[in-house]
């Protein structure tokens, strides 16, 4: 039940962030590389919330796959790292690309860093906020193809960062559906992930080869 709601929420957000068209990002390297597949490494977590890394990781597949990329199964990749004695995201991010290529054969590798994750209690209302940065790297050349950052907050209606209507909807949905702060953070992380990794965002990633032709132009 809850998952239907969260899907609706995610859809809403993607639609609402989807109308802008301006673009200033230099996509030259991205266009030349034409990655078909993306390996998302477990995110490095700079927040104090222990579960932040996997909470975010479990929600990256939807936006990236729907953008037209093959996304390596995060649960299987994680188990593969674990079997090789690697559980610390920091350590995994430091692996040489050749090592990753030997195992996964991905066209591009995505590095995510979570800078904010969780609820801070303020006098009037609590604020649940998740902020993350991502960079996409060509796995052969090591060249940076794209980087971006996104944030989502349960109090968006007051600071208006996502537009009035969006903010109100976010708050209304999150308030209604979510009971515990852990679940709330996880939900907000899903919104951040959508904003960060959808092709519809301003300066977002380019559509991949499995995206409908209309999107790819």
């Amino acid at each position: 039940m809850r998952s239907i709601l969260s899907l609706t929420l995610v859809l809403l957000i993607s639609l609402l962030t989807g109308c802008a068209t301006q673009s200033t990002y230099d996509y030259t390297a991205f266009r030349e590389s034409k990655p078909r597949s993306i390996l998302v490494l477990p995110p490095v977590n700079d927040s104090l919330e222990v579960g932040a890394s996997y909470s975010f990781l479990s929600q990256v597949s939807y936006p990236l796959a729907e953008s037209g990329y093959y996304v390596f199964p995060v649960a299987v990749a994680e188990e593969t790292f674990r079997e090789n004695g690697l559980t610390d995201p920091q350590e995994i991010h430091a692996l040489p690309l050749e090592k990753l290529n030997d195992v996964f054969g991905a066209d591009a590798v995505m590095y995510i860093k979570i800078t904010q994750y969780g609820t801070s209690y303020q006098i009037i209302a609590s604020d649940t906020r998740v902020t993350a940065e991502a960079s996409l790297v060509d796995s052969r050349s090591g060249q940076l193809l794209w980087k971006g950052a996104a944030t989502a907050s349960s109090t968006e209606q007051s600071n208006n960062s996502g537009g009035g209507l969006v903010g109100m909807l976010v708050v209304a949905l999150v308030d209604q559906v979510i009971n515990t702060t852990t679940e709330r953070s996880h939900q907000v992380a899903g919104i951040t992930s959508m904003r960060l990794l959808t092709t519809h965002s301003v300066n977002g990633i380019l559509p991949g080869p499995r995206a409908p032709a209309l999107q790819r132009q």
Partner: protein
Amino acid sequence: MTLTYLRSSGLLVAALVAGCAPVNQPLYHWGDYQQTIYQYHQDGVTDYAAQVGRVEALLNQAQAQGKSVPPGLHAHLGMLYFNTGREIEAREQFAMEKSLFPESGHFVDYVLKAQPEHNQ
């Protein structure tokens, strides 16, 4: 209450879809797949049989609706089968992943090679 809420959010989505640039149908049937991935990682739950049930259910739903499953789902199910000793089915799932998504070929080969053969 929840039903009304669902309906109203459905209407909202519809209104937004109509009012915005072309929005495509999702490429894949996701169901609660991401929630499944998340939930079983929480608290170090290792009830592989229950996970198998959830992922199989998703697969059946998608098939019943004639929709594609997301990339990685067959490989994920394959891993769960390996973890529960269902080796033949596991290999079938990995083969499925590779044929639906050739981009996974190198990784699938790696996983299958790393998997010890069990000959009873």
